């Protein structure tokens, strides 16, 4: 295992991380910025879902209901979070922390701007690691431990079924998401997200890798456990699935983690397929383009939720194994052949 990975990390060119204080400032700024985006996204989703269903959505708290998430947080914080006697309390306590921790950790590799766009040499990303894509896959899979542990440790039927579905979902899409990014890795010749975005200065990878992009989107919806793949939660069948027994801010933390996950997946898709910071105008506009592309993908998440009904989990399995996996393998083979021959 170690020797091929070592070859990768020594071969890839990684931009300098900058002095220590720059790294700290970058980490705090990115974290603070995205943590503000999550409640805004909750508000946006509720408003948009309202409009999609011919109603108004929350519009009472603050201008156009913008303060609704604040009111929600105040309510959740002042609620009791009880633990059933059948539960494993310490696991229930750490499950939401795992969920939000992995979502924030994935945030670290998202490149928001070109290296040196604001002076200096360093990339506008939390870190620029040579194993970027593998890092994303690793923490994306770890996030499911939050759902699994939370559901299993609750000691409730509905939670247990929810966590089993989370496992079924993980084994269905994880291979497809890995293979869909492989085409990009071949085309860019690197796994670092900064290098991958830099490789798209002429044409975005969504054009040559359109199959990979579509597979990544479908699998990304499953990774974020969003409708039509919100099987672990499935509020119409399993009460609230894995978080049935969670109340108060523990539930709030799961909720926040889910929205952070949406932002992270949109950001990775925007960076890997939609050209990241590339766009017309001078280089310092890079983050603006990045956030615009992320916003488009986030809107797609909400639109799909309002449009597509939930799949059964055997349907998700056959989608993952019989359609996405062969298609993604074909995409990899065609990309590899074209890259070598041309």
């Amino acid at each position, binding site marked *: 295992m170690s020797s*091929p*990975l070592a*070859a*990768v990390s020594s*071969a*890839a060119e990684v931009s300098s*991380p900058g002095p220590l204080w720059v*790294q*700290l400032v970058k*980490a705090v700024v990115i*974290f603070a910025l995205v*943590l503000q985006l999550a409640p805004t996204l909750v508000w946006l989703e509720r408003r948009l879902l309202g409009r999609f269903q011919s109603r108004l959505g929350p519009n009472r708290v603050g201008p156009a209901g913008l303060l609704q998430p604040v009111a929600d947080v105040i309510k*959740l*914080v*002042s*609620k*009791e*979070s*009880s633990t*059933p*006697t*059948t539960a494993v309390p310490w696991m229930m306590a750490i499950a939401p*922390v795992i969920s939000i921790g992995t979502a*924030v950790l994935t*945030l*670290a590799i998202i490149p928001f701007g070109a290296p040196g766009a604001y002076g200096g040499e360093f990339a506008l990303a*939390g*870190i620029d690691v040579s194993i970027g*894509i*593998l890092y994303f896959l690793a923490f994306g899979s770890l996030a499911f431990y939050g759902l699994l542990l939370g559901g299993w440790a*609750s*000691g*409730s039927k509905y939670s*247990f079924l929810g966590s*089993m579905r989370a496992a*079924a979902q*993980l*084994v*269905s899409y*994880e*291979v497809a998401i*890995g*293979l869909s990014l492989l085409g990009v890795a071949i085309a860019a*010749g690197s*796994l670092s997200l900064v290098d991958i975005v830099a490789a798209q200065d002429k044409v975005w990878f969504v054009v040559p890798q359109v199959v990979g992009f579509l597979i990544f989107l479908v699998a990304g919806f499953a990774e974020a456990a969003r409708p039509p793949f919100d099987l672990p939660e499935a509020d119409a069948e399993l*009460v609230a699935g894995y978080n049935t*027994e969670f109340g*108060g*801010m*523990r539930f709030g*933390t799961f909720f*926040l*983690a889910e929205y952070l996950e949406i932002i992270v997946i949109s950001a990775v898709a925007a960076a890997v397929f939609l050209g990241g910071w590339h766009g017309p105008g001078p280089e310092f506009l890079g983050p603006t383009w990045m956030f615009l592309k992320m916003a488009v993908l986030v809107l797609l998440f909400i639109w799909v939720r309002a449009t597509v009904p939930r799949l059964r989990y055997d349907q998700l399995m*056959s989608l993952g*194994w019989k359609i996405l*996996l062969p298609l993604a393998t074909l995409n*990899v083979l065609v990309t*590899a052949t074209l*890259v*070598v021959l041309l």
Partner: protein
Amino acid sequence: MLRSYLPVLVFLVLGAGVGLVFTLINGWLGPRRPSRIKSEAYECGLPSEVTSSFRFGISFYLIAMLFILFDIEVVFLYPVAVQLEALGAFALIETIVFIALLLVAFVFVWRRGALEWR
């Protein structure tokens, strides 16, 4: 080399910190009025007979085994993918043979009905 992973720790502290702070504030501000009914697991209808260690048949067991196999395939393909242009036709043919071998296994389990829902 390892120093470039230092910001990961910052992100870890921030992320887990937010989760912990939320939970702690909740425990501090929220009421605590336990009762016998409240501390039962949620159930709709008859009282629940679920204990914390009941057994459950997992019908996707075989798929989970296949998942490990194919996930390792993906991990093996990544180093080749990054260096494919440098390694050229030799690596391409090796990759095609590697994927073809796995594809044979894939077609086999598919035809044997391992991917069907039971």
